[in-house]
């Protein structure tokens, strides 16, 4: 802290004025051209304050965040404006100044800690590296500092934590270790680039709380980059909303959340409120899973224990749980990719064969699947027309113009035009790709569609559109969904019944309104209380009232 006191405390820490960032794109067959990624963004940050940068992917939020250390990822250039840090413009200081600034005055916390740590070196070496490089303190002192930070961030066995390698700790712990790395050299500013996006909701809240405490205790300033407005509302003093590289709205957190002025911000704030009324279950279930027990490695690792579920036609059953709870394995068992050890599945009144290879074609047709990553779920060498048209050829033997007409109809259903039939997946946006996958599933005229985290790779507004589309299609086609997700907001907006899974077991199961009504069991309580809400002070309340620690600890 002595170093901090020596500097001028009254002045602004970071002042970005009229920032303009460009990159050169190389479209094949055309001359390269410059494109503007960030245009005219200005922001100011005082010591000890947190500014949230929020926007969809491609909005330029990471690019703006990295400009505070005058760094352009992937060949982007800062072509205009000033980045004034501690009273000097670091874009004009040359490499020498940048070496002083990076790691000493500004530190960076990356989104994927697992990819950002060097797997071959112990955590302690990596956490203390910046402090040692800049000769801020001796090795022993840096390690003492690191242990203190491990303790503050709530890591287990802080004294020996640094002796582990990155693969020996969980994802949430690694993310906190990276925060410790950023804090270790006692910088003036930390750039957090989506530090909790890759984490489970129950782990996210722990990391969020420890980041917030660390910021408060060390009086460091921070730029917090995320696409989740509810998360940023918990930690930021001010929020800047970005879109297409331009500032949409910039103001105090309370004002942005409570009284947004721009339409776009209002949309972001209101996302996740899809009105949906729970439909009562009636008649025989289309799919009934009874006492499913499944394991990998020839019975060595049991991932599902005695799971039973009913799905009714025209209804949505949501399966919720954190990663490793066995929700995706349940999908694999139902589709026949993983034959269960025990239990049976009844589909539309007939017994489903446990193996995929021995299932009848109609069983396959009536049970379709939509994947989390639409990118890898479509053959990149087939056009949209082929992708959607193949199930038509395969199941209904449609050919030629009859097939093309039906493809056009399906494209219409997913709110995309006929012109898309000739496109390749690489020519579609993320949301469009997922829509094509939905159309492919619909083409088979299924009775049940398994949706495996279909919206979790998408931006909130795009995900919202996909959910609305799925609900509309359910009304039209009377299809049932088995909706696998870890996102409880999604569950609330589309499900009719809910199964909460924890370590391979269904811990709570029933109609939506009953499952979401207290009293809760300990795990459901934890899950529900961990979903960030767009309210100020939610984080503190949630931490206070929790009964059970998350599985990450």
């Amino acid at each position: 802290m002595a170093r901090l006191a020596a500097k001028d405390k009254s002045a602004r820490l970071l002042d970005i004025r009229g920032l303009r960032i460009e990159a050169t794109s190389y479209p094949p067959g055309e001359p390269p051209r410059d494109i503007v990624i960030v245009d005219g963004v200005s922001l100011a940050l005082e010591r000890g304050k947190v500014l949230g940068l929020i926007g969809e992917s491609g909005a330029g939020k990471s690019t703006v965040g990295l400009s505070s250390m005058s760094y352009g990822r992937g060949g982007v250039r800062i072509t205009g404006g000033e980045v004034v840090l501690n009273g000097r413009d670091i874009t004009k200081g040359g490499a020498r100044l940048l070496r002083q600034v990076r790691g000493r005055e500004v530190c960076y916390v990356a989104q994927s800690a697992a990819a950002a740590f060097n797997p071959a070196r112990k955590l302690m070496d990596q956490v203390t590296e910046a402090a040692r490089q800049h000769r801020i303190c001796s090795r022993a002192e840096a390690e003492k500092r690191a242990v203190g930070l491990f303790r503050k961030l709530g890591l287990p066995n802080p004294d020996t934590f640094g002796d582990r390698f990155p693969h020996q700790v969980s994802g949430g712990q690694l993310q906190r270790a990276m925060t410790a790395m950023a804090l270790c050299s006692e910088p003036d500013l930390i750039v957090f680039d989506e530090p909790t996006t890759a984490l489970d909701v129950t782990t996210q809240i722990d990391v969020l709380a420890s980041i917030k405490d660390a910021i408060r205790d060390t009086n460091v300033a921070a730029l917090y980059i995320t696409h989740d407005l509810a998360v940023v509302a918990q930690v930021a003093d001010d929020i800047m909303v970005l879109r297409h590289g331009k500032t949409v709205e910039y103001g105090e957190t309370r004002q942005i959340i409570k009284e947004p002025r721009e339409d776009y911000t209002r949309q972001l704030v209101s996302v996740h409120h899809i009105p949906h009324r729970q439909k009562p279950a009636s008649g025989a279930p289309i799919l009934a899973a009874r006492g499913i027990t499944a394991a990998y490695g020839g019975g060595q690792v049991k991932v599902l224990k005695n799971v039973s579920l009913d799905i009714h036609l025209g209804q949505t059953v949501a399966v919720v749980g954190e990663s490793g709870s066995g929700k995706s394995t349940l999908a694999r068992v139902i589709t026949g990719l993983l034959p269960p050890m025990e239990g049976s599945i009844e589909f539309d009144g007939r017994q489903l064969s446990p193996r995929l290879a021995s299932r009848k074609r109609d069983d396959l047709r009536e049970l379709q699947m939509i994947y989390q990553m639409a990118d890898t779920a479509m053959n990149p060498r087939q056009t949209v027309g082929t992708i959607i048209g193949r199930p038509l050829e395969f199941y209904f033997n449609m050919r030629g113009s009859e097939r093309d007409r039906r493809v056009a109809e399906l494209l219409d259903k997913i709110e995309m035009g006929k012109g898309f039939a000739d496109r390749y997946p690489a020519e579609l946006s993320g949301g469009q790709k997922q829509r094509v996958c939905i159309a492919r599933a619909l083409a088979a005229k299924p009775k049940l569609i398994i949706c495996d985290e279909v919206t979790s790779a998408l931006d909130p507004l795009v995900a919202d559109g996909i959910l609305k589309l799925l609900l509309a299609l359910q009304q039209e086609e009377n299809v049932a969904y088995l909706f696998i997700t870890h996102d409880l907001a999604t569950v609330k907006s589309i499900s009719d019944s809910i199964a909460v899974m924890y370590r391979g077991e269904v811990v709570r199961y029933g109609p939506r309104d009953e499952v979401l009504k207290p009293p809760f069991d300990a795990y459901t309580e934890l899950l529900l209380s961990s979903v960030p809400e767009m309210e100020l002070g939610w984080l503190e309340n949630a931490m206070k009232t929790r009964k059970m620690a998350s599985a990450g600890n």
Partner: protein
Amino acid sequence: MSSIRNIPVSAWIGLVLTALFVFAAVFAPWVAPYPVGETVGDVWEPMSAKYLLGTDNLGRDLLSRLIYGARITIFIAALATALSFILGSVLGFAAAVIGGWFDQLMSRFVDLIMAIPTLIFALVVLSVLPTNVVTLILVMGLLDATRVYRLARAVAVDINVMDFVEAAKLRGEGKMWVIFREILPNALTPLVAELGLRFIFAVLFLSALSFLGLGVQPPDADWGGMVKENKEGIVFGIPAALIPAAAIAVLAISVNLVADWILNRTTSLKGGRG
């Protein structure tokens, strides 16, 4: 036609030279100034207007023999490469998709074959079997197929675990569709890159065999055989052996220039539309 304008210079050079070789090979009887086996002049005559590239060790016209040699060399190498690719890639893809015992059996068998040096293996086989064009193509094709198999299997194993292949299996598609419609188009890029290289290896392999006397038999000659026939001349400063050697090198480079260009086109995931 924007596609013709977009061909880079290097690809043009490759295309023109390859076309020239193929043209000479196909129309050899009309292009060559003299018959292939006829002694028309003195031994090792220098280049002149009458004999454009001079004559060889028996006084035959070198240019004519080069043109006929192109025919044999390209024909055998192309067929051997085609055989090795069809066999190697189909078996490689099948091993990756079917897996289990089939994969084990195929892969260990291929390992076994690859453990024996190719040239020695070919020499043994060819010294037992009657040396004609068909055996040559079969032996070269089968031996090369082991390399293609390994590449194709490695590529297909990676593609086989992608979600779109799983989606096809869930749809109930058969193995043929999975191999030829899902995996093959995505494996084409590394395979085409390998194709250019393998063709050249086939040319070199054939030349090596002929040089050792087990390849194409006289009076016919491929380029490797021509190097062998004229190798004594090098001692006397006669370039007759270097000319077919240069032809091998030029063919190698031009085919690879074309392969590189095709590679660039097939890498595009937007159907080459930019």
